[in-house]
């Protein structure tokens, strides 16, 4: 009986530790509005990093942008440093992958 309890406890610990590894690796969507303080397009033009200063917290967040439409806006300067951006990104493996990256300003 004692052995069975020990085995059950060991299994429970193993299962919990498995969750502990899984949870941080899962994707988390974050929404923010921030101003671009730094924008760097990769030499191959296939990605860019934008540092956004969160309008609420003042914290700087580095966003990785890979979608063609937004990259094109960086290249022809439709989006530049100083622009305020409405951004949704996915935290995954230590990177903040942009899902939505749009200027808040209109006409």
């Amino acid at each position: 009986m004692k052995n069975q309890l020990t085995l059950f406890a060991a299994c429970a610990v193993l299962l919990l530790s498995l969750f502990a590894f899984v949870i941080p690796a899962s994707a988390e969507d974050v929404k923010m509005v921030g101003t671009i303080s730094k924008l760097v397009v990769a030499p191959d033009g296939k990605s860019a990093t934008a540092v956004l200063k969160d309008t609420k917290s003042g914290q700087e967040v580095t966003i990785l942008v890979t979608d063609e439409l937004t990259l094109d806006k960086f290249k022809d300067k439709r989006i530049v440093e100083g622009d305020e951006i409405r951004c949704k990104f996915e935290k995954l493996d230590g990177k903040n992958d942009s899902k939505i990256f749009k200027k808040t300003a209109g006409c």
Partner: protein
Amino acid sequence: MIKTRLAATALFCALLATTATAKDHPGDESIKSGGYHGPETCEECHPGTARKFLDTVHWKHASKVTNVEGLDPGKEYGMKNRIYVMCNGNDIVNNLKEIPKSPDTGKTKFTGCNTCHPGNHLSDVGSSGPEAEKAIDCLICHSAEYDFSSRKPFKDAKGRVVMGQDRSTKSALTVGRPKVKNCMACHEAAGGGVVVKRGFAFTKETDVHAAKGMVCVDCHRAQDHKIATGLDPNNWANDGTLISCADAACHGAKPHKDPDLNRHAAKVACQTCHIPRTGGAFAKDFTEWEKGSDGFYEPTTLRKEANDTTPVYAWYNGTVANSAHFIGPKGNRSDAKSRITPFKIFQGKAYFEEKSGELLSMDFAPPMANGDTRAGVESASRTLGMKNPAQVAQKAVTGWQTIYFGSNHLVTKTKALFCANCHAPNGVLRFKELGYTDQEVVKLTNPDLYMKKLAERQREEW
């Protein structure tokens, strides 16, 4: 044999060369040697084009409008002068200008409805004559590598607000038919932000036409820069040419293999099945503005992304009801010209004239600087020559206007609505509200209508 192969290869190379030449802009050499100097350079090969362009909606921001009730048939209407609650301002009352300093930051900025006008602001909306012709920004629509950092308003030596343009030779050497991004440079952010007004994104993920590599002007075809449009209840100004999916060059009158689906086209618009989603802003409050991170204010806006919401459906015969509190489709099921059509509903809160009940417009400069919306109404009333503008603004009452926007993009083939999406009891069409009797609703939601067809489709899919 070798001779034949050589001849074939030569022919192939010649054809390739022809194709390459056809894609090149024939005027490139002239631009390279002489530089680009605005429309006068374009006019060397396209004489008379600038003058004709001044007669288009893109330049005038207005046209005669024949399908909207309550309008003067002798006048032109459009964003130049309209008063409605997506914008609440227009080119006249909310002309591009430097707004007062923000009390918080001491900074100012330029803003105005005519920011997107393809002139230089000195030659503005609806202007004409040689100076206007020289002011046209041809490259913003025709260059693939336009530098948008040049397209910024500034004050010249005389203190006039001028809109900058990219007139570089580099930019001019990439001219061609407008690409999607040329159109979207203005149309994407209309109404106060990206995807706010129209609520669509023309991308391969969101539109079947974009996925096939089509661009805006493949459907919105142009003749002398007059561009075809649809009959959107909210989009009044037009160049006089209509787009139709049933155009023989596009889908024709019988686009489906299934005759049952083709039969629907008499009463159901193509968009109803093929544009099942919509998006963008669905409500705005012009009486309460929110302060942004830059210290300036913007109208409070509730927004959705493209494809984020579902449309509403109404009968539409192409004519439009137009009152202070409602702009939307006219039509009914007994009208042979009416078809069930999807719309995005938008509601805006603004100020109405106390006695007449008419919707008032707003100059955005005062509220943008300090949030004072009644000061914006007063300024607009003064610009429009109304009596006692201060009193008009002070006594104005708040209210809502509902607008039906046409839902004409985000076209899908694979996710199109099918029989049960409408004819099941929980379908998207509210037949009762569309004018059908209780007995008819029972018939219209009877599974006999679709059982065989859907069962067959299910067998194919699984």
